[in-house]
């Protein structure tokens, strides 16, 4: 098993062409089409007192990754929205805010959420700093209560939306491109690492191993671990390039992303085994791979947000597409900040798909060989 892995690894170092090609394509496509680097945020006009601008609220607005809050006079703000140059604006006050909505898009809810969060944080901050200033034991107790209360019943009515279940979606072009192209191109890399199993069965290398004391399971595991390794290496390279060379911070979720990617890679290795088990020859494999991967990318939302796919039929198809769940988990983690329970759904589907494809694929391969 170790021998197989090492033999594959040595071959890889001797001719890393395919790997470099697909890794390079992922990065280049993302840079060109994703506008990473100088990527654009949505501009949202805000207005309010000078004091708000320099204090907590103003600072917090600055920190938004998604929106570019632009300070304007109230009149200008209304004018901007009337002319349709912004979807919505916010008028900020000391203890609340007012949304001015031009177009009722999904972004409006997001903007409101962002602003509301800031106000909640502000109140918490104030309470906490108050708390720390007080010496009196009793008072502190009281304040703590007040703080808890404030946390549970905010001064303004905010319903915490789970964006997952509503129509709302966030689209961040740069993030989307990195995820999409990575998920897409890694399909090629992985499939081309599984293909040698097929060629080895044809040319006798596999027969030689069968006659040796090696176990069948070791033969598969050695090869498949290698496929996983090469696919995952590509993902690591891409994400490290964007994280440390381009300086993209992925909302601090890189470890989570890489975990999801590992599960996705496993699912794709299995898918590759399955494809290999049903094609009759290499020509068929070469023909099937782009058709399959491109359609997976299109209906799985790698090239554009899946939310714009409308056809019922395509949406049904997307349910059996590992890429859909890869995107779902990644977006859930990075864009929607979903809790782990939410993320577990796409992740477990990926694992399940991996197990099924692997089982069926190996079964078909074994049956056909005899």
């Amino acid at each position: 098993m170790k021998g197989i892995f090492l033999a594959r690894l040595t071959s890889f170092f001797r001719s890393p062409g395919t790997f470099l090609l697909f890794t390079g394509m992922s990065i280049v496509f993302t840079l060109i089409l994703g506008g990473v680097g100088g990527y654009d945020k949505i501009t949202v006009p805000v207005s309010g007192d000078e004091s708000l601008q320099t204090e907590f609220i103003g600072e917090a607005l600055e920190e938004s990754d998604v929106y570019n809050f632009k300070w304007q006079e109230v009149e200008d703000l209304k004018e901007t929205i009337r002319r349709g140059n912004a979807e919505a604006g916010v008028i900020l006050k000391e203890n609340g805010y007012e949304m001015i909505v031009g177009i009722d898009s999904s972004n409006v809810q997001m903007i409101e959420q962002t602003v509301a969060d800031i106000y909640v944080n502000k109140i918490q901050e104030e309470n906490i700093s108050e708390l720390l200033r007080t010496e009196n034991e009793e008072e502190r107790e009281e304040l703590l209560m007040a703080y808890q209360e404030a946390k549970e019943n905010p001064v303004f009515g905010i319903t915490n939306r789970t964006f997952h279940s509503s129509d709302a979606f966030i689209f961040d072009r740069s993030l989307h491109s990195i995820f999409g192209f990575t998920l897409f191109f890694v399909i090629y890399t992985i499939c081309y690492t599984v293909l040698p199993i097929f060629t080895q069965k044809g040319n006798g290398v596999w027969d030689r191993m069968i006659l040796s004391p090696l176990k069948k399971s070791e033969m598969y595991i050695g090869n498949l671990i290698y496929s996983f390794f090469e696919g995952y290496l590509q993902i690591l390279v891409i994400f490290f390039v964007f994280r440390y060379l381009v300086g993209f911070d992925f909302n601090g979720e890189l470890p989570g992303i890489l975990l999801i990617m590992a599960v996705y890679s496993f699912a794709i290795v299995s898918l590759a085994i399955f494809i290999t088990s049903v094609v009759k020859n290499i020509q068929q494999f070469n023909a099937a791979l782009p058709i399959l991967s491109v359609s997976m990318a299109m209906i799985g939302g790698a090239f554009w947000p899946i939310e714009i796919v409308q056809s019922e039929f395509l949406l049904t198809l997307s349910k059996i597409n590992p890429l859909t769940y890869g995107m779902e988990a990644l977006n859930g983690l990075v864009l929607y900040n979903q809790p782990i329970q939410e993320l577990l759904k796409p992740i477990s589907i990926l694992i399940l798909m991996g197990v099924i494809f692997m089982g069926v694929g190996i079964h078909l391969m074994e049956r056909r060989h005899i």
Partner: protein
Amino acid sequence: MLELIDITKKFKQTEAVKNMNMYIGRGEIVGLLGPNGAGKSTAISMLSSLVEPTSGDVKFQNKSIIKNPQSLRKIIGIVPQEIALYEDLSAEENMKFFGRIYGLKGQKLQEKVNEVLEHIGLTERRKDIVKKFSGGMKRRLNIGVAMLHDPEILVMDEPTVGIDPQSRNYILQTVKRLNEERQMTVLYTSHYMEEVEYLCDRIYIMDKGNLIASGTKDEIKQILSLENTISIKADYWNEDFIEKLREHPQVNRMNIEEKEIVLVVSKNVNIFSEIAHLAEVMNVPLRSLDVKKVTLEDVFLHLTGRALRD
């Protein structure tokens, strides 16, 4: 020692091997001959426990190995028809990989690799990547890899296809030497009669899934004892000449090539003068006219009415 008993293998549309029987004794070199698609590869895959027969049994030392192939697998080495190597690894790395899967390691592995490299004449090219080897060198390595674990039985599937005469002779000599020095049992598959005639003690001939002849070289040639084979050579033929020969009552079979026609005629018939006369009348520029020594090729022609190779 190793035998096929009434073996049949059906694929979806084709019956690749039909009711075949075969026996290989210890220390023998047995030849398996047949044209493309005869079922040779399929037969030896079943013999080496790689493919399960549709019906029939495969026995090694009188025990069926279809369900328990371990005893055979330990002592068999195969040289697949294709180049079964890692193309991106060097000759030595390939050897080490295949040696390791047989549990060889360290000093022992290295010694074995050196020894086999010497045997197949690739010691100087050991560090080179297989992809850059010539066809003949790949073939030699393909054979070498099968010998690392000192197999008692070596099964070779057309090991000399597509290589130059020198490499081929080298391979044939190596096989012969291994057989003589180590009593290695060899099953040698080929569609070259000369190779099989040179190497083998006993021969099986297959065609279209059927075993059509078997025995020692002499026994097989006896099949032709009632007939003579005549070779006619000329620069070109014409249709009438061929037609006349075909219609001739004493000509049992004939095979036509560009510059040679081989006739199988009943023994004791002298049609030399007749052929010479025909050639003159039909304007065929004869070069020679001989009675041929019987070869396995002729036996094949006799049995199937076709030449072994197209």
